[in-house]
């Protein structure tokens, strides 16, 4: 692929979507007020685990303003949803498995009627024992939440012989590490507008994966409708939370629209959103790490347990990623890693930026610092001794090729953070009771989905009749700024003005399925498909222009807003002219492409070997903290992040991804968690679910090491997820440095740190 000059650091960030958003003009799903829609509200289970004996909707039906009350009996197709495994009823039939599970829908003329009717649906339950944590789920006499038992999925990776390696190790560190839930807390809560059409349904909503929504709507409506069209509305944040949750929301809205024959709007307030949508998995890791006296890692034995909640959601893939990066970016000759996801009677857990890695990296990176302390070695030095590099063999047998920038990231972050000086100085308490600390963590993250799923991308680029270059790709913009990135790619590939390029919102009726907008793949895979479609588009437009101008295609040049003869630049046609001539001729000017990222990757489950990802992104982060030893309050004062995500297409956008990831990781590390009582989620609003404000945000310094990725557009790798992954362990290690002892569970709330200081 072509290489081109990189954007300079001074270039001003100019996202194409920014002015509409800042001015409040962009219309999200609930702003589409010209549609006279009915209001849908969901009746939810009040029990964590129970058989449903009866559902009495008689009073709800009579509520003034109510049009219809819907239960599972009204579903014309299959009453099941689920991203990979359809294991969750769209509306509960005879059993509920968590508080908040959908049991019925109320459709009303106005929202107050809908809310009133929701409260008058009477559900009679016969309670079952509720399983509220991992260990209870695994107990031999535990009730089975699903027919197959309480283990959702497990993965194993083994290499060498850990037992004999531990025996030969000079030092062995062993510990149990635990981690909390995390809620996505996107600005826009879930919303979907469904409209009946002749023989079909059109759905507009907030989502990450339009084709998954289309499949979900087809499944639940079955043969009742022929045409399902899904359009992504502007979407205010996702972070993985809108990977599968919109399937349920849109299927509910579509069902209401189908049964009433009228447009139906389903939108959640914050409480409803927090109660139902899948979260980041909490759980624990038991980890044993061996090393020689010189600090060479010898063996790792690890068990990862993730609490997956009541339904499957994305758990199998999440647990795979936890297992696959359990070693961190280090060479360990003997490993025995097992990961399990279990069912409990709580909100399901699924996709969230980082996807299983923030959990396993926390354990891996904190334990590295514990080992360093035991060895009386600098934690960075210990890491550098064991770091993977070009040509290294990963635990699953994959040999790494080029483009491994982790060493350069670590060295750069060490300089930026003045690591050695601060590490010397910190770790003492000053006269005001403040202890300073500095900590480091590394991370690696495979680009895109890998061999467990279909990993193809597609794009269509065409000239519309006004001479605009229209880009169609079903991957979604939900805050990343991906359209700005794609326009950059098309403009570079075609050498045309950015102002002539337009990206349109996903619509399943006019696009191919480019796969889910997840796994840091929008630039690396979506961008690659767009690049290839642009190259095909270029051939098509040069060929068409050749006939119009009367010059052979290879003697023509596309530049700015027109095509001209290389020999005689005055012999030219603007794209606008070409478009109108094509219109008159009845000609289509278009380029398409599919890219298959599954090529060259595979996974052998039995042996735990394969090539799960073809390229890896890396990061090295350093956090500097101040701990008030009298209250346990942790303030992160400075933060340094260096990333290798291949070639950076838009530096300002890439920096934004890192800032966002760091702040989201800081919330995860310091304050975010969900609290339950008897299975009921208590932290169901922003009053009690804390996310960081600017007052909690440190100075963040970002830099990039730019390796080259053969598969990505212009050498790019994925960047979306990796910035969140080293944050919690970097902060954990900084606290460890400050107070002299490791805390193996987070969030590091003032109270938790205070307790640790008291010696609990």
């Amino acid at each position, binding site marked *: 692929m072509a290489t081109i000059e990189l954007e300079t650091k001074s270039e001003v960030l100019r996202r194409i979507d920014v002015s509409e958003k800042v001015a409040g003009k962009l219309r999200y799903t609930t702003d*589409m007020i010209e549609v006279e829609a009915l209001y849908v509200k969901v009746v939810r289970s009040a029990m964590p685990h129970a058989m449903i004996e009866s559902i009495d909707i008689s009073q709800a039906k009579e509520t003034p303003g109510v049009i219809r009350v819907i239960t599972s009996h009204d579903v014309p197709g299959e009453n099941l949803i689920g991203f990979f495994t359809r294991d969750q009823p769209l509306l509960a039939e005879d059993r509920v498995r968590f508080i908040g599970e959908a049991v019925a829908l109320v459709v009303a003329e106005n*929202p107050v009627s809908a809310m009133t009717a929701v409260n008058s649906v009477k559900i009679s339950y016969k309670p079952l024992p509720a399983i509220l944590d991992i260990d209870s789920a695994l107990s031999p006499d535990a009730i089975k939440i699903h027919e197959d038992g309480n283990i959702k999925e497990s993965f194993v990776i083994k290499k060498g012989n850990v037992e004999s390696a531990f025996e030969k190790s000079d030092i062995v560190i062993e510990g149990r590490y635990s981690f909390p839930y995390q809620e996505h807390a996107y600005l826009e809560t879930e919303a979907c507008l469904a409209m009946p059409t002749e023989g079909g349904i059109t759905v507009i909503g907030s989502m990450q994966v339009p084709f998954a929504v289309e499949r979900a709507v087809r499944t639940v409506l079955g043969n009742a409708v022929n045409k399902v069209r899904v359009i992504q509305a502007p979407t205010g944040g996702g972070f993985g939370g809108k990977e599968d949750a919109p399937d349920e929301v849109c299927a509910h809205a579509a069902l209401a629209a189908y049964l009433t024959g009228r447009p139906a709007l389903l939108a959640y307030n914050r409480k409803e959103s927090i109660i139902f949508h899948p979260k980041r998995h909490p759980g624990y890791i038991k980890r044993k790490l061996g090393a020689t006296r010189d600090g060479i890692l010898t063996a790792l034995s690890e068990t990862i347990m993730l609490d997956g909640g009541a339904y499957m959601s994305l758990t199998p893939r999440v647990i795979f990623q936890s297992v696959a990066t359990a070693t961190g970016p280090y060479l360990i000759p003997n490993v025995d890693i097992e990961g399990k996801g279990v069912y409990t009677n709580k909100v399901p857990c699924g996709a969230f930026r980082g996807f299983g890695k923030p959990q396993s990296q926390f354990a891996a990176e904190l334990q590295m610092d514990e080992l360093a302390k035991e060895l009386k070695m600098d934690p960075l030095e210990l890491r550098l001794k064991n770091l993977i590099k070009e040509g290294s063999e990963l635990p699953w047998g994959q040999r790494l090729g080029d483009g491994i920038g982790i060493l350069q990231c670590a060295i750069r972050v060490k300089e930026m953070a003045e690591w050695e000086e601060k590490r010397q100085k910190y770790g003492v308490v000053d006269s005001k009771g403040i202890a300073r600390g500095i900590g480091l963590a590394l991370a690696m993250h495979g680009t895109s989905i890998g061999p467990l799923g279909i990993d193809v991308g597609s794009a269509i680029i065409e000239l519309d009749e006004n001479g605009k270059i229209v880009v169609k790709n079903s991957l979604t913009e939900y805050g990343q700024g991906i359209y700005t990135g794609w326009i950059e790619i098309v403009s570079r590939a075609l050498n045309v003005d950015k102002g002539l390029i337009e990206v349109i919102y996903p619509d399943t009726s006019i696009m191919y399925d480019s796969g889910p907008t997840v796994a840091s793949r929008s630039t690396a895979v979506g961008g690659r498909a767009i690049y290839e479609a642009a190259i095909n588009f270029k051939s098509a437009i040069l060929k068409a222009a050749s006939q119009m101008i009367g010059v052979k295609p290879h003697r023509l040049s596309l530049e700015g807003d027109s095509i001209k003869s290389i020999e005689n630049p005055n012999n030219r046609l603007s794209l606008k002219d070409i478009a109108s001539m094509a219109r008159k001729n009845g000609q289509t000017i278009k380029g398409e492409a599919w890219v298959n990222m599954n090529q060259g990757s595979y996974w052998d489950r039995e042996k735990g070997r394969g090539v799960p990802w073809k390229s890896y992104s890396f990061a090295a982060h350093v956090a500097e903290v101040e701990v008030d030893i009298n209250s346990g309050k942790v303030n992160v004062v400075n933060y340094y992040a260096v990333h290798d995500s291949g070639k950076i297409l838009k530096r300002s956008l890439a920096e934004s991804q890192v800032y966002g990831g760091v702040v989201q990781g800081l919330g995860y590390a310091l304050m975010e968690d969900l609290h339950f009582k008897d299975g009921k989620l208590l932290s169901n609003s922003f009053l*009690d679910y804390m996310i960081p404000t600017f007052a*909690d945000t440190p100075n963040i310094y970002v830099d990039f090491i730019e390796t080259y990725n053969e598969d990505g557009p212009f050498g790019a790798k994925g960047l979306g997820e990796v910035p969140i992954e080293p944050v919690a362990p970097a902060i954990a290690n900084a606290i460890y440095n400050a107070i002299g002892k490791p805390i193996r569970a987070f969030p590091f709330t*003032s109270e938790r740190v205070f307790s640790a200081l008291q010696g609990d």
Partner: protein
Amino acid sequence: MKPFQYLSPIQEFEYLKPRTLDEALSIVSKFNGVAKVIAGGTDLTIALKELLVKPQAVVDINGLKEIRYIRDDGGIIRIGALTTFDEIYRSGLINKYARCLAQAAYNVGTWQIRNLATLGGNIANASPAADGATPLISLDAHVHIKSINNERDVPIIDMFLGPKKSALNSNELITEVYFKKDELANCGWARIGRRNANTISVVNVAVNISLADGKYRAARIGLGSVGPTPLYAKKASEYLIGKEASSATISQAAKIAMDESNPISDIRGTKIYRLSMVKYLTEKLLNNLTYGGIN
């Protein structure tokens, strides 16, 4: 149709906006408990949206400019009930004579909330965690309350009867909060929160002292989020009065304050942590106010 409202619909009610205090008092008297008074609305609006209250009428008192002021009334500082936290935080008078109140005001919610939320509303809502309550306790403030044919003055501590339960009757309005101006006094406020801004206090403490000849001439300590209501740490306060200032005295007073508090464990913090923090914050504030320094 307004989908915006859909996410948190507001039920129908009669909306009344009196222009004078007398008019407002006659309206609340007439509705006799089935009306809700709205000032800043930062608590009431949420309750309305969640259908937690279903008033027949909402009485908007934001037009009553006569109860929105901060003034020095010769020895007494008077704050009109409709004064917002932003106005309190910006007031030179409050910063000079009641710095603890200015500090607390600055930490209430966000800028948007401080622009709306009023001191009177904060008292009427009677949250055990109310940031405005502890400074007023430490200042020994009084609340002036009016109804259509009566008025009364209530010590601030007697306003709080239980969680979200105040001594205000449904036919009454708070019109003013006032306290004595003390040139020798020095007060401070501090809290433990779960983040650095816009958070409900896990513990908040206000301390007001005045020193003469190295001895505590006066001392009042207010404690928040450590009982069913904001608390006056009576024993700790009285312990200090007349005593020579010393680290040992301060430490002992902080311990007594801790013993006087009665927190619960909830998702914001455990009882044991809250107790430790009462001691820590009280000690820190007393040290800072006695010996100078930052708080």
